[in-house]
């Protein structure tokens, strides 16, 4: 896209401000800091010891299987439930009453007032905040224009999630919490919701979301904290996590591709369902080696590691477990 500027001062000002945003983000203090959170439900320890922080404009994903403590951690950060131990700071200070005016929450399980239309629901919540968002803008952003007269209980899963997202954004929040926003949605609705979340992100809002979908985490998140059994076991950007814990790739070939004794291969390998899976550290070198060994590569597929592989590497189990 080409931007036209009136004069060089405006251009320099724009460049300076963009530089400032990038530079500032790297050096700024976290908008939310969570330290050593612990939550007990009677004898069950839902969250054992969770610490993380998130800087303004960043999308942080809490990734983990069901029961990992993601939602409990999120609700403690949202000030919906109180931790048994630990500290939560918003902009460097304990949260005050104004915290609710500055955050938006989309819960995983929630319900709305019965017998109200989408429009009435939006208007009701609009009146609850001091400085609410322009409703028309919100309706447009969350694609609710055609649903305004429809009752809440007549919405499909994807439509309801878009309404819930609109309610989370109704107060122009600086910090948005999304608890498994796409769970239960069909692929099209999910993709649609992701696009809306990306647009919110582009506006510079800070997002914390929980998910057990590594695809969602990779698509939306700048940083991912992997949780298991009430703890954060790894925390970095998705790319860095993959690089740190799962280097290389897996080449998958049919058994018929090999005319040599497999033990002669300079890689570790395993056999599964008539296929040979090779674990390759350096993709380029691996390819050259296979070509030199006269392996038929026509039926080969390549699996590059993802966050699920990182999770398996760290915990020994799958995200779906």
């Amino acid at each position: 896209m080409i931007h036209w500027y009136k004069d060089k001062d405006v251009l320099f000002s724009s460049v300076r401000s963009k530089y400032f945003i990038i530079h500032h983000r790297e050096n700024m203090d976290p908008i939310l800091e969570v330290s050593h959170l612990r939550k007990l439900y009677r004898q069950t320890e839902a969250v054992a010891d969770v610490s993380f922080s998130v800087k303004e404009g960043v999308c942080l994903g809490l990734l983990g299987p069901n029961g990992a403590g993601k939602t409990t951690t999120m609700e403690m950060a949202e000030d919906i439930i109180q931790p048994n131990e630990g500290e939560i700071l918003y902009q460097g200070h304990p949260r005050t009453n104004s915290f609710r005016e500055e955050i938006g929450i989309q819960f995983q399980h929630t319900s709305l007032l019965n017998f109200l239309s989408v429009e009435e629901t939006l208007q009701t919540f609009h009146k609850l905040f001091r400085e609410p968002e322009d409703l028309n803008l919100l309706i447009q952003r969350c694609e609710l224009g055609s649903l305004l007269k429809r009752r809440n209980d007549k919405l499909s899963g994807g439509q309801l999630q878009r309404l819930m997202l609109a309610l989370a954004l109704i107060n122009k929040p600086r910090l948005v919490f999304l608890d498994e926003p796409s769970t239960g949605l069909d692929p099209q609705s999910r993709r649609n919701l992701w696009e809306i979340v990306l647009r919110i992100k582009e506006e510079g809002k800070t997002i914390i979301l929980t998910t057990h979908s590594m695809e969602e985490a990779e698509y939306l998140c700048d940083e991912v904290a992997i949780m298991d059994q009430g703890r954060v076991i790894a925390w970095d950007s998705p790319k860095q996590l993959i690089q740190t814990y799962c280097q290389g790739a897996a080449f998958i070939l049919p058994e018929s591709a090999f005319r040599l004794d497999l033990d002669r291969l300079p890689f570790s390998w395993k056999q599964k369902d008539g296929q040979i899976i090779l674990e390759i550290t350096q993709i380029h070198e691996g390819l050259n080696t296979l070509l030199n060994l006269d392996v038929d590569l026509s039926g080969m597929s390549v699996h590059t590691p993802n966050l699920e592989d990182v999770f398996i590497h760290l915990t020994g189990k799958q995200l779906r477990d």
Partner: protein
Amino acid sequence: MNFSRMWAMFTARNYEFFRDRAAFGWNFAFPFLIILGFGFIFGGREYQDFKVGLFPVEAGDEFFLKSSVPDAFQNGRYLEFIPFADLRSGEGKLRHQKIDILIDRNSPTHAYWINDSSPKGYIVEQLFLASFEKNEIRAEKQVVQGLQVRYIDWLFPGILAMNMMFSALWGVGYVVVRYRKNGTLKRLKATPLTALEYLSAQMFSRIFLLMFTLAVVWLGSDLIFHFQVLGSYAALAFVFFLGGLSLCAMGLVLAARGTSEEFASGILNFITWPMMFLSEVWFSMEGAPSWLQKLASFFPLTHLLTAARKIMNDGASLSEVSSECFIMTLVTILCLLLAAYLFSWNE
């Protein structure tokens, strides 16, 4: 307290109620059907026993019958003796034919009062006079006037108040518990709305609906039964308003923490049934053991009904029911504050 937020919740709750057609219709149909049924079943019939009022009797005096009233009369069958502190309190009951004769138990002239338009009064007067020895001094007769309060006139405020109680306690208490369970309250907690604002909105929304229902049921029933209201309609409406507030506030306390609809149902039944029987909805507690009357005085419904009947049947003014109004106001404030203090948004 932010009134804009409260107003938003008030209107949202009203939308819900008016659009829930089944619940909305039943709120009108239930009291109307009860009034209609009782009106036709009991018509203008009164109590079966003859009621004899005796005064002055000090509170707690269980031996008040040992008086100058002849033994032959005291031992008569089908007579119920009711103590009154003074002439004034007994006279009011006699005027509306709630009792059939009123006797001054300390009077050397055996003074008694009769309502000259009461047939039962005439019969019990003959029984009273026949109980004296032939040479004994004649009793001194005094006459009061006043039309009989029909049972339906007496019952009508009771049914309206009972409907108010059920609607207030279930419509507030049960609904809030349901909202907590399905996560609606959790969604609202994520906003700046405070517990006091939310609960006040619930209370005022319900009182608005209660007063609306009351007006519609009153007008509909009055077309058939032509109720007699001796006091002012404005005072009566004010008393029902205060009573409704106190019952809603009570419902809010019950709803402050509950998370199970089944448990909430149990608690609501536990509260509503004794209130219905002890607060004089269906029958008068006059003559009931004093401890039971004392227990009934803790219920806001008792004070609502006492005040409403005083205005409707006795023509009392607001100042004459000020003590009942004060108690209902106090119950409202205390329950609302307690509910706000105890209130939990989460399961």
